[in-house]
């Protein structure tokens, strides 16, 4: 049976930087991929390089960027939850978990990806990760989808140890790079630096194009 994949992230581009290669590999293997994206990243600080967006035009621009990135990644079912950037943690957590739960049931998800609670830095990340876990906990353990969590807090290795899943994505790096480019306002400056220094294995973007790392969530 082919996996049915659900992604739960709050900001357009979270999916691409964290998991772009993994998503492409799922799509190539014939999985159906649904993405619940919490906000339009309305409060982003990156405005393009040169600056092409302002606070009021940014949401629509990022929505189009996300739609294009989804085409590169092979995400065919994009659903926007309509929350406002930076405010997700203040919303009704129960209602958010309800919405996630409904989608998990509807698509009969077998694999879910989100951030690792406590290790994802941005309060919106934390809130959506917690809501996702809450939603999945409503499903009996033997029927529950596998949950993978992305961590990047400065102490995540100390606390969680090495990620148990390390995926080599080099063979789909071009596709991931296209998705990164699609998120133009958010990636333009990073891309400039990368292209200036493409042969430097330590360049910021290089590590995003080699491997993706995440943790299988252990239910307690």
């Amino acid at each position, binding site marked *: 049976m082919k996996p049915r994949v659900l992604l739960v992230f709050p900001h357009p581009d979270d999916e691409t930087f964290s998991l772009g290669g993994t998503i492409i590999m799922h799509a190539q293997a014939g999985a159906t991929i649904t993405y619940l994206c919490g906000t339009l990243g309305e409060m982003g600080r990156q405005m393009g390089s040169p600056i092409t967006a302002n606070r009021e035009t940014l949401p629509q621009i990022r*929505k189009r960027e996300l739609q294009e990135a989804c085409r590169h990644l092979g995400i065919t079912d994009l659903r926007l939850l309509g929350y406002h950037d930076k405010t997700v943690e203040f919303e009704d957590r129960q209602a958010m978990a309800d919405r996630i739960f409904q989608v998990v049931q509807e698509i009969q998800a077998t694999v879910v990806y989100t951030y690792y609670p406590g290790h994802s830095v941005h309060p919106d990340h934390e809130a959506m990760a917690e809501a996702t876990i809450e939603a999945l906990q409503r499903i009996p353990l033997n029927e529950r989808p596998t949950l993978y969590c992305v961590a990047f807090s400065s102490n995540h290795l100390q606390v969680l140890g090495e990620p148990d899943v390390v995926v080599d994505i080099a063979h789909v790096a071009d596709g991931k790079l296209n998705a990164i480019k699609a998120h133009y306002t958010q990636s333009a400056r990073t891309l400039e630096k990368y292209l200036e220094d493409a042969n430097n294995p330590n360049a910021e973007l290089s590590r995003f194009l080699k491997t993706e790392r995440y943790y299988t969530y252990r239910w307690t």
Partner: protein
Amino acid sequence: MQPISPEKVQPLLTQFFNRDVYLHLETTNGSYAVLRGEKTISVGSFVRNVVVRFERGMITGNGPYRVGLKMEHGWIYAEGLTDWEPDSSEHCLLLAGHDEEGRLTIAFQLSVTPFGAESGENA
């Protein structure tokens, strides 16, 4: 956006005097500031679509610029403004500050109608 021309911004600001207008005011150093070092903390605030009324307002400085608006019972203040939206009008004025990397650090906006309640639903 383009570098602020205070001589173009001031007359627009004046158009907003003594009437109820919607304010968006925001400052941020980013939610990822905490990753830059142990001692750095993320600092930011925003208010969006708060109705205000002011009787006096000026843009000052030589760039970056400051704006001060005097209300009946208080003040609205912003500093570090570098850019404006040249499509701004007497209905909607957008000012912002960007750092050396082009990241937004402050937004100061006035409008006679509420700023878009952008909903991402129905992709």
